[in-house]
């Protein structure tokens, strides 16, 4: 049994509720607050309540624990904070504390059990990891587990959710067209651990991190490509945090857009088709605010002939969340879909006909949002636009 608030104390974060200026800047950028307009759902309100609990060494009550998970971990609060509180890590550590109190929401416990038993979040057999490759079978059948400098890490969502499989297929098609010598881990690809990191179960992610990195190194991989910003952030930020910087030395982690941009710059691919559409770009939080990666996707889109890229009112570091982060889709699906709907409304105001992003979670959420508000907006993942513009 750990001491109360030990996770926060580990990072010296127990002082942050006092550092909070209570200015409330975080409230009007917080998707959960904007959904309810109650301060109890805002970062300011939650920190205020935590200050009292930490001061008196009292445990987090169950109802408050549930409210802590009403959060997409989008990081907008951290971005606007007057006193530079590292709120993303703070919320992760608070969730860890909730885990220590065995108060995790049901969905987190389900994911935990699933990963422990099957190494993926879907509770499916690892043998089914390659189901997503059905449509590009001929391109990957001799690529599974081979030695290569470039690896594609599909992640659980793309691997097991049929509606997202096209993202993996598109990436494979692009790699093939560019003549990239690549490998995929197949059954040896384990969950990246992101659900654990989001829920504050850091220790439980250690074995997954070790396994994935070891497999990469065994195959002589130097560059890992991701469609999922969550997986990408796990490798590039959480793994070094958990295992030390040396654990990822010699490995380069590229989000899809950066990888495609590199291929474009090296002349390995070229957009040949006119793409006469107006596209509104949505920055995934885990790529944008969390890792400060904003430009590659815009550069890729702007390289496509005929396309018009529109920015939403809130873009880049001020981009609003799609509603799918922080496990909110599992813990509070109704709040999640309302947040998604609001983001779609913002995209509609740009006059765009297509909304695009590069994240499986954003893809699912924004499609749900379109349905929820019965919008005419179409959603196309970046990989889909790239494949169409390449004529693949």
């Amino acid at each position, binding site marked *: 049994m750990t001491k109360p608030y030990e996770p926060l104390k580990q990072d010296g974060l127990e002082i942050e509720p*006092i*550092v909070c*200026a209570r200015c*409330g800047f975080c409230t009007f950028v917080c998707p959960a607050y904007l959904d309810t307009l109650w301060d*109890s759902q805002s970062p300011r*309100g939650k920190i205020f309540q935590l200050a009292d609990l930490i001061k008196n060494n009292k445990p987090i009550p169950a109802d408050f624990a549930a409210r802590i998970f009403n959060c997409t971990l989008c990081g907008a609060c951290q971005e606007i904070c*007057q006193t530079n509180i590292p709120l993303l890590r703070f919320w992760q550590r608070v969730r860890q504390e909730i885990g220590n109190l065995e108060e995790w929401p049901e969905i987190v416990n389900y994911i935990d059990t699933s990963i422990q038993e099957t190494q993926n979040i879907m509770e499916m057999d690892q043998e089914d990891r390659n189901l997503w490759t059905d449509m590009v079978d001929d391109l990957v059948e001799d690529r599974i587990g081979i030695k290569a400098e470039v690896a594609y890490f599909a992640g659980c969502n793309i691997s097991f959710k049929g509606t997202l499989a096209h993202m993996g297929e598109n990436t494979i098609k692009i790699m093939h067209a560019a003549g990239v010598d690549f490998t995929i881990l197949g059954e040896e690809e384990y969950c990246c651990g992101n659900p654990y990191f989001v829920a504050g179960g850091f220790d439980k992610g250690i074995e997954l991190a070790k396994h994935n990195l070891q497999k990469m190194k065994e195959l002589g991989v130097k560059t890992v490509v991701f469609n999922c910003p969550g997986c990408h952030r796990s490798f590039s930020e959480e793994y070094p945090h958990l295992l030390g910087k040396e654990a990822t030395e010699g490995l380069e982690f590229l989000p899809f857009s950066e990888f495609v941009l590199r291929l474009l710059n090296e002349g390995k691919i070229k957009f040949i088709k006119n793409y006469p559409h107006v596209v509104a770009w949505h920055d995934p939080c885990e790529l944008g605010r969390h890792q400060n990666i904003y430009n590659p996707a815009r550069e890729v889109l702007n390289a496509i002939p005929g396309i018009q890229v529109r920015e939403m009112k809130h873009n880049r570091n001020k981009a609003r969340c799609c509603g799918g982060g922080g496990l909110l889709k599992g813990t509070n699906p109704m709040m999640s879909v309302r947040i998604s709907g609001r983001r779609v409304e913002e995209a509609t105001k740009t006059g765009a006909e297509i909304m695009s992003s590069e994240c499986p979670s954003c893809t699912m959420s924004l499609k749900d949002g379109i349905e929820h508000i019965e919008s005419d907006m179409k959603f196309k993942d970046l990989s889909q636009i790239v494949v169409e513009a390449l004529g693949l």
Partner: protein
Amino acid sequence: MLRNEHLQKLADIVGEDFFSSAEYMNQLYSHDISALPGIVNDLINPHAEAVAQPTTSEIVSNLLKYCKENNIQVIPRGHGTSGYGGALPTKGGLVVDMTRMNEIYDIDKGSMTIQVGAGIIWGRLIEFLEDEGLSVAAYPSSAPSCTVGGWVAAGGCGIGSTKYGGIREQVVEMEVVLPDGEIISTIKPIDEVFKDDKPEPFFKGDKKFYWESEVGSENNEESTSMFIDSNGTLGIITKVVLSIIPIRKIKPMTISFPNKEQTMGAMQAILRITRPFYLHFITDEFFGMLKELDKAPDVAGEWLVLCALEGTEEENNEFAEKITKAIAMYHGTVESEEIGHHEWDERFYPMRVKRLGPSVAPSEVYVPLERMVDFIDHCNKHFKGERMAMEGAVNHRNEVAVLTWFLDDERRRIPFMFGWYRSLDVINIGIKKGGRAYSIGMWNVAHSRQFYGKEDYTKMAKLKKRTDSKSYLNSHKVFPGPLYLSTRIGLLIMLAAAIAVLIAIMVAWWIVPSILTAYVPWVVVNDPATFLLWAIVGVGVGFAVQEFANLIPISVVLSMGTPFLRLGRKIFH
């Protein structure tokens, strides 16, 4: 104390989803931006009993009628971003959180006005107007979270005020719900508004709550002005009509200076050339703190002035050139454009230095620009040994709204408590230098009469008496109100009195036994029965003392307590 039937009725009026009486929620709506020392919490006892979020003016009206009828305290609240205690509950009651009334009702490009719900935040309003090529002329530095109604009620100046004035100069009209539930439009002369027969108010609310206002028709001033700065004591602001301006280019210049004399001299010189949109300075000590935080730009001098010009590109360049020439004699250095934009982007972040505290004791006061050097010297001497960050923004009357931040640590409870005097002393020093309080709220009630002017204050007091004689609407703000000691401190006083009586008797028998024997031989503590008896007497005395203390106005306690706090701080700092 709200009973279950009250809670149920209030929830019925406002709607179940927009009402809460959960304890954690009450706590969240019982504070503002300031961290209060523990003892102040005990003296003021800021604990709401329920929170309501009305969605229409009619609901506000019904809430007020019900609360007045049932003598329930009502505390209007924007988003709690001020620090003057204006939104703090003092006797329990219902917090009316206005953030759900956040509509944009009408934009009139002919008269250049916009009508909005009082609960909309400035940030959202600015974003909305931006799409129309428009802007508000002035907004608070807390624009990302401050509500329009909140700033109107608290008053003050902000970004844009050097050129366009404070919030008072921006408000054209308001819709206000008076304490008796009547909804009025303030643009009409107040005598029309308060006549019983004509004209009809917009809405008289639910018939079962409605009764005629007994207000006469003596006032003849336009009432818009009266409700600004009034901290929601005269009524709850539900809608505001603001004047708006076309968006024009902003050219921010950051100019650094070697000392305060040059800084203040240069600021006056700038104002002789033009009226910038925003003219703001930070002291060298503030700069040093930003440096510690790695947030300070790389500049020549440590006194920084942000001068944001507003106009066409040609106008801005012309004035920038003139300013550059004029400040040369003050040894000013115009820093790079990049630094200019950095400082402009930082205009919303005056509280960065709080990280160094981790707490701060803030204060704000208006000081005439020509007395600033004197004021800074006085503060430096008066607060020697304290870490004080100071900044200031010039308003349209050439007053500087000076904001000071004293670094502190609220975990060190005793020094933090005594340190509260600094916030009060900054205001006193400012007033000595010809300044005035920045906003009244609860903490500056002692300055009310001077702040509003005798004539206006009398009018406000009359209106308050007529519409809210029991002061159920935002009591203790603007108009003095008595203490409302917490149960904890009440019990402490009674316990202390019991002990004091027992000790006094025993000491008296030890010092002057002959007098006691001669006159009051029955005053004795020599067995358990007499011990108990006199302890009970002591508790009674404590109870009387506590009741008497509850009659003392907070402003008197603050005035009397300041010297003790000052002394205590010197001892415990």
